[in-house]
């Protein structure tokens, strides 16, 4: 069993080293590269800590999408002005920070051994009523469904904030036949695996967020290859795309209120089906929102609606 602690030490050392590199590398471009590597090693850490859902999400969202966004915004960020703060200030803040971090590390280690709280035991006991056999999906979409609904609202508010800002990034795609070929291989595969991830979410690691993120990465590939031939997403369908996830979630949540039950209390026998329904709608919306978050602006000039004349009488 000694071998595992060696591996653990290696992984932790690698994670800390990449974090330091991503924070203190001289040039911005290097930092982004180190950050993407950091995201991938963290995905391996989640796998080591028996959290496959998070490994998927970290690889796709943490390293993939966030990395792609950072790379795309590198071109309009001037490199950092090189005037480091006074030597004393830097040493002082580093020392003070170091002491605080050491204190936090000692306190965290004093928390062990961790024992299961009441909610954890309740999750395993009542797993069968949740309608799905994978515990993480059960917690996400049944026991703590309110968190997930608010999280969709967070994504929606970010997407709306971005849509109101300005035009989206121009696709810098030099439609070379090579990238075309790559996209022709990757995009169908990504869409296929998104569907697979969505379906698998009920009984194994996967689910709406990972599937939505995979779809968004397919959109990133399309944006990079600069395919103009694709049908333009109309304003109304863009709005519908953003809405279908949260709206369906709220609607399914409100139904139980009609016969006196609590909000989001799915009938036990229908729970599995309802969760699949919510997840597929959420996947579509998440894919749309994450693509907009990557594009950094609205694809249509007169978002949110085509006005006949701007001063349309109310």
């Amino acid at each position, binding site marked *: 069993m000694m071998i*595992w602690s060696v591996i*653990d030490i290696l992984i*932790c050392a690698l*994670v*800390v080293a990449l*974090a*330091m590199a*991503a*924070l203190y590398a001289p040039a*911005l471009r290097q*930092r*982004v590269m180190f*950050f993407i590597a*950091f995201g991938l090693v*963290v995905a391996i850490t989640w796998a080591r*800590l028996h*959290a496959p*859902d*998070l490994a998927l*999400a*970290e690889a796709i*969202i*943490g390293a993939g999408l*966030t990395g792609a*966004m*950072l790379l795309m*915004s*590198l071109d309009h*960020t001037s490199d*950092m002005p090189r005037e480091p*703060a006074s030597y004393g200030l830097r040493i002082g*803040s*580093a020392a003070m*920070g170091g002491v605080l*971090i050491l204190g936090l*590390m000692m306190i*965290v*280690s004093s*928390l*062990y051994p*961790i024992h*299961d709280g009441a909610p*954890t035991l309740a999750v*395993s006991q009542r797993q069968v009523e949740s309608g799905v056999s994978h*515990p*993480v999906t059960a917690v*996400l979409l049944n026991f703590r469904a309110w*968190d*997930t609904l608010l999280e969709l609202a*967070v*994504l929606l508010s970010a*997407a709306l*904030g*971005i849509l109101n*800002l*300005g035009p989206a990034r121009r696709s810098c795609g030099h439609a070379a036949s090579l990238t075309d070929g790559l996209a022709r291989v990757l995009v169908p595969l990504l869409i296929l695996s998104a569907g697979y991830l969505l379906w698998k979410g009920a009984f194994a690691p996967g689910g709406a967020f990972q599937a939505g993120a995979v779809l968004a990465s397919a959109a990133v590939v399309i944006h990079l290859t600069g395919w103009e031939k694709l049908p333009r997403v109309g304003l109304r369908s863009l709005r519908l795309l953003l809405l279908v996830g949260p709206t369906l979630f709220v609607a399914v949540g409100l139904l139980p209120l009609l016969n006196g039950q609590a909000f989001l209390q799915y009938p036990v026998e229908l729970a599995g089906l309802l969760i699949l329904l919510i997840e597929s709608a959420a996947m579509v919306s*998440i894919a749309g*929102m*994450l693509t907009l*978050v990557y594009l950094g602006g609205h694809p249509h000039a007169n978002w949110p609606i085509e006005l006949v004349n701007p001063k349309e009488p109310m």
Partner: protein
Amino acid sequence: MGSSPLLYAVTGALIFGIGLLASLRDEALLARIIAINISGVGVFLMLVSFAYRGFELAPDPIPHALVLTGIVVAVAASGLALALEKRLAELPKSKTHKEDSP
């Protein structure tokens, strides 16, 4: 064998601290977004290592759901910040004189 989650929790606390300190430094926005994301991963690392129950037992699913929510929230916030900065870079450097009434 119970020691390994403690190692990850302590690493998580270390990364959380380092990331937070770096995010307070006055640098290009991109660097601060990277710092905040790294600090977020630090907290998630602490959460997941609190959930780890060793090789044989299944881990506690609740922190995994929390961290999944955290990852998605982090990418939403980073995306909004990057879009704001892109817009700032696009706006003409001179102060637009049109007053704030739309």
